[in-house]
């Protein structure tokens, strides 16, 4: 147990370090871009008529205070960390005066729900089928599944998204093609609303799954067909250990270890993976929010979204890493 807590501590230290560096980078990049959000706002506000220079100066001062852009770079940097510590990213520019954190909190559950469900489903299904295909190499059905997976794998997910959109929205319109739930429906925690959410998520989830399945399938199939010839599997076969036991505890379990690492990595890709899917299906998540924030030059919203995704991705990877020693006892020793 002591070695596990040592491992935990080390991993947690890494997590803090990664988040710190990531947020610093986000700060630097936004501050080094030539686009000055304040000048942009001012020019937008003053483009329809002449405004007195004093009024413009006052406006500039007010905006600076609002966005924490007073003083030199170091002062701004200190102010920035103070805001992050309390989770305040200032008001949004494009949806003034709604605070950025409100916008993010509203969008976050949609993205996390959509992506975690599709990623986990894809992972489970791909590994199960791939593992079986690696073990029962003679099964023609599983071979066909392999061909299918390999065929779909290289298709970009936005293409499958469009194809699904055309098929289920136009040729055979049975599923809703846009939004996260039915527009007219009040939000609430009841069966109707949840059903509507589930129905709306079918197509986005499907578009992500069809493409993601192939990678897990092929990876797991290759892993399993290697592990089948490992000494401990052959020995278990010589020992007459029950087939089902060999398949689950000797082959699948060992093959899953690298796949768990892969899962952590793909959870990390949640935020960039969602952007296009959410755009195509008009899903009210982080991706849609980010795209519109960039279009509107909404400086604080972009910074807030970046920060939140840095923390979320690192936390997901940390969680998987902390669970990993429970799956592989050898990790603790390192």
């Amino acid at each position: 147990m002591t070695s596990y807590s040592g491992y935990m501590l080390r991993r947690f230290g890494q997590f803090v370090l990664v988040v710190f560096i990531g947020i610093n980078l986000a700060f630097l990049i936004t501050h080094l871009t030539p686009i000055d959000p304040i000048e942009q706002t001012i020019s937008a506000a003053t483009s329809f008529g002449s405004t007195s220079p004093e009024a413009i100066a006052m406006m500039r001062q007010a905006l600076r205070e609002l966005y924490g852009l007073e003083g030199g770079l170091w002062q701004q940097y200190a102010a920035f960390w103070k805001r992050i510590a309390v989770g305040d990213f200032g008001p949004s520019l494009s949806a003034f005066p709604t605070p950025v954190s409100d916008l993010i909190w509203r969008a976050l559950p949609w993205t996390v729900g959509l992506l975690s469900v599709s990623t986990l489903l894809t992972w489970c299904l791909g590994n199960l089928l791939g593992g079986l295909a690696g073990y029962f190499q003679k099964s023609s059905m599983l071979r066909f599944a392999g061909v299918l997976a390999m065929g779909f794998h290289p298709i970009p997910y936005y293409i499958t998204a469009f194809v699904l959109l055309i098929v289920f929205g136009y040729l055979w319109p049975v599923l809703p093609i846009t939004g996260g739930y039915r527009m007219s429906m009040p939000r609430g925690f009841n069966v109707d609303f949840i059903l509507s959410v589930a129905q709306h998520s079918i197509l986005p989830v499907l578009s992500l799954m069809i493409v993601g399945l192939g990678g897990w399938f092929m990876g797991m199939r290759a892993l399993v067909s290697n592990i089948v010839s490992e000494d401990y599997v052959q020995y278990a076969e010589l020992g007459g250990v029950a087939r089902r036991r060999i398949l689950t505890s000797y082959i699948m379990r060992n093959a899953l270890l690298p796949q768990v690492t892969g899962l952590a990595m793909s959870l990390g890709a949640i935020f960039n993976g969602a952007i296009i899917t959410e755009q195509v299906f008009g899903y009210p998540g982080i991706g849609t929010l980010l795209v519109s924030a960039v279009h509107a030059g909404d400086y604080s919203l972009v910074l807030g979204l970046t920060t939140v995704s840095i923390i979320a991705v690192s936390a997901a990877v940390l969680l998987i890493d902390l669970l990993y020693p429970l799956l592989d006892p050898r990790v603790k020793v390192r």
Partner: protein
Amino acid sequence: MSEGAAPAPVLTVTALRAYYQTRLFGIDRDVRAVDNVTLHVNANEIYGLAGESSCGKTTLIKTIAGAIRPPLKVQGGSVEFNFHGRRVSLYDKNAPDLADIRWRHLSYIMQGSMSVLNPLRRVRNSFVDFAFRHIHKPMAEFLDTVRAHLLRLHLQPEVLDAYPHELSGGMRQRVAIALATVCRPEFIIADEPTTALDVIVQKGVLTMIREVQREIGSSLIFVTHDMAVHANLCDRLGVMYAGRLVEEGPTAEILREPRHPYTAHLIASLPRIGDVAPKKALEGTPPSLADPPLGCRFHPRCPLAMDICKRENPQMEWVGPVHRVACFAAQPGKRQ
């Protein structure tokens, strides 16, 4: 065979042929790893199988263990066990399901036991996976049996709670031996169980193998290329060369008076106290088993080769009550 009154042997291998069949670029190739091998192993006996690498030792015992997977294929002959009157013929048309024989009657100690235990399962679970179905007891009593067995083999019962990586190489090998003997099987196959170990650990493991074999009275077929190990452990010795058995007899007799020039060479390669002269290596390399030389397969390297050796294949013939050899030079009647 020669001893009529002796009880039936536990293992009888008759004219066994096992080939690796490969097909590369449309060309069929047979690698005759086991070619016409006949041998038996008596009850309560340690039978040593010697020979250099790639002479077919491991293929022979794979075939004996019923672990055939393509491209290896049994071409002919039979492997028959006699477990206290229960006859099991492995390559018969009506061969039984081996799962209920494995570990109960026939167990296996494998080469490189560093990797024969599942790295993600505690040793306890390996024992449960392999042996629980054969020892008809509830789990708690079963584990008591296992603990008692481990103690007998000078292992702390705590190893049950360990993962394989937490044990040293020697301990892992001893755990593997405990695992292979916990069901007290009649027949144990040991495939180079000491090859990866240093000599000190090796000695401990060999002693343990002999102790446990004596205690449960099982038969053992012990494979290694190390003649010194054979000299210490085995009752009888079989020497293989290029897929064939070339000599077989009591270990002491073979060591004292080898009949086959290949055996003689293997024994001469053993270091002796007082040796000063460097050892001479045997000229040439073992033949390719895909295209073995005509006649005796050893003749290209044999110092005693005669004309007949290039044409005819010597058969195993008795040169003593329990001593057989396949060599024209050692069979006086065949000299030409």
